[in-house]
Structures are given as C-alpha cells and as structure tokens.
C-alpha cells in the first residue's frame, strides 16, 4: 500500500501536465467532428498523445483501416522500446496478468518516471504512478471537447505547443548532463528536419502517414550514441543513469 501511495505522489505532476495537452486533443477531436464521448473514449483506450492526434486526422479523412493501423503502429512503436526497457526494470516474478495491466499505461512520461527508480519497479508502485495520469488525460480530453465552442481558433492553435514544450522539458535536462544523450537527441532532431525539408527525402517520408520518419531518425540517433566511445570516461551511460535522472 505504501508503494501505491508513493506511486500516486510521483505520478501527480504528470497528471497536471497531461491536462493542457489532452484538453487540446479534445478541442481538435470535436473540431474534426467527433463527439465528446468518442474523444474521451479514444483517450481512455489509447493513452497516446501523438498517435491519437494522427489517428483522428486519418479517421476524419476516411482513411482505410490498414493505413490507420500502420500509422498507429509506426508512431507508437516507441512504446515497444519503452516496454522492452521496462521489462528489464521489473521483477521477473510479476505475473502476466499484472504485466498486462501495467502495459496499458506505458506513456512517454510515466515510463520516464518508472525508469528513474533506483530499485526494481513493483506492481503497486506502477499502479499508483499510472492512476492520476489516466484521470488527467481522459478528464482533460472531456473538458477540451466540451469547451471547444468557447475558445477562439487562435487560442486553440496556441495550445498546440504545450505537448511539444513538455517534450522539450523531458529532453533537455538529461542532454545537459550527458554529452551522449545530447548527441543522440541532436542527431534525431536533425534527421527529422531533413526528412521534412530535403527534396526527395520529404517525398519518401510522406509514405504511410509520415510516422516512420520519426522512428528512423530516433533509431539512428540512439544507435549512434550507443556505438561511440567516450574518450574521457569509460563508464557506459547505462551505469551512470542515476546521475542525470534524479
């Protein structure tokens, strides 16, 4: 029970952060023709920011099922990597049933907090960690969907930046402390920009909803940093995580 409470406390800031972002999602979904109930249900069942935004645009455009599945797969494939990473962080004794509950809420932010734990991640802790973010994400969506008529299009537009700035706030502190993280994220950002602006590449990256450009950029950036040797310090970053994750 103590572990659950500790998880609740750790997860609460994520809940607060999710509200403006999911609010924007609710606004956009209603704008595209979804009902507030549908929008809230999508948030509750997906718990996935970028994947949901891409999904509702495709559904609104009447995309074929296969395109929706492939786009969702590509944009959300990062959760596969996070889930794999988390599988190394939990006790091997945790049952499949409990794991299937935990898997539901592997989001960028919840994963980041779980990864920061010094010891193994327990089921009650993760349960506490995911509780308020789920409420914040679905509740924020509902609020945004209901409030969509009250805000001007310009104001709605400006709220779209909230999600990205949250990402920036997750990336920069570890990049500041580790040169290899900084290199990895810089390469990923550069490649992602190239996929958007370099003629030829940008045509390619439109295929399949455009989500794969993100994956290719991220995999190359991470592979680069995992492969280079640091001259000054021989220690591998996975052994010094606690330094820049606390």
């Amino acid at each position: 029970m103590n572990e659950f409470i500790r998880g609740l406390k750790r997860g609460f800031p994520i809940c607060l952060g999710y509200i403006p972002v999911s609010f924007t999602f609710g606004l956009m979904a209603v704008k595209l023709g979804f009902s507030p109930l549908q929008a809230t249900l999508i948030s509750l069942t997906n718990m996935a920011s970028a994947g949901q935004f891409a999904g509702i645009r495709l559904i609104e455009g009447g995309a074929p099922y296969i395109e929706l599945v492939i786009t969702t797969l590509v944009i959300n494939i990062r959760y596969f990597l996070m889930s794999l990473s988390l599988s190394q962080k939990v006790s091997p004794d945790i049952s499949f049933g409990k794991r299937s509950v935990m898997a539901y809420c592997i989001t960028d932010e919840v994963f980041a907090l779980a990864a920061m734990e010094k010891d193994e991640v327990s089921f009650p802790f993760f349960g506490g960690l995911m509780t308020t973010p789920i409420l914040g994400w679905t509740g924020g969506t509902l609020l945004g969907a209901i409030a969509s008529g009250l805000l001007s299009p310009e104001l709605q537009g400006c709220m779209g930046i909230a999600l990205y700035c949250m990402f920036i706030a997750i990336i920069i502190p570890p990049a500041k402390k580790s040169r290899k993280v900084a290199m990895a994220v810089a390469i990923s950002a550069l490649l992602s920009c190239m996929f958007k602006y370099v003629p030829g590449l940008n045509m390619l990256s439109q295929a399949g909803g455009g989500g794969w450009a993100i994956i290719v950029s991220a995999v190359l950036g991470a592979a680069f940093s995992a492969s280079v040797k640091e001259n000054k310090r021989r220690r591998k970053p996975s052994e010094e995580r606690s330094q820049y994750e606390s």
Partner: protein
Amino acid sequence: MNLNYVAICMFLMFATTYMIRVTPLGFVRRKMENLWIKDFLFYIPFCVLSAMTFPDVLYSTTAAGATPHVSMSAIIATMVAQLMSWRERGLVLVAVVAVAVAVFVEMGVPYIMSLF
C-alpha cells in the same frame, strides 16, 4: 461521420497501441546483458521525443482550421521552453509558460500594436 466506421477505427487504434505495449513487458522476462542494447534502449525515448518535436513544434501554434505554417509565436515560445528546460523547471511549468508566451505573441502583440 459513419458511426460504424469510427467505432471500428477506435477499436483498431486501441488494439494496435495495446499490442505494442504488452508484447515486450508481457513476454520478456530475461534480463539483457548486452551493454549496447541497454544504452540504445536508454537513449530511444529521448530520441523519439526529439524527432517528434523538431521541426513540428515550429508549426504547432497555427490557428485551428488553418494550413500549418511556421510562426513567430512558436519560435519564441520554443526558445523560452528551451531556456526554462535548461534551468530544469518542471514539465508543467514549461508547458504552461510556453502556451502563455505563444498566446501573447500571437494575439497580445497585434492587439497592442492596433492601439497605436
């Protein structure tokens, strides 16, 4: 929109996303020893977020319904968010301040200019 179509799409989104998440955590019980893979898995979340953010953040303040374009409000708000993140302010504060800056540049500045 066709209700049936939307319902099937919603289910497909859920099923796809959940399968992605449950497969590794549900079935991988062995601890990995390979340091390269451990490092790679450690960098991946940051890299994904970085690739998602750039360059899309610069288009993110486009008014609802308009064609996405780079705007001054997004550029300035991004710079403020980067500075605040460098100083290690929390996620929520960074996001809220960035939205406030974007609103000010996008709507406040034109209003102030119109007074003169």
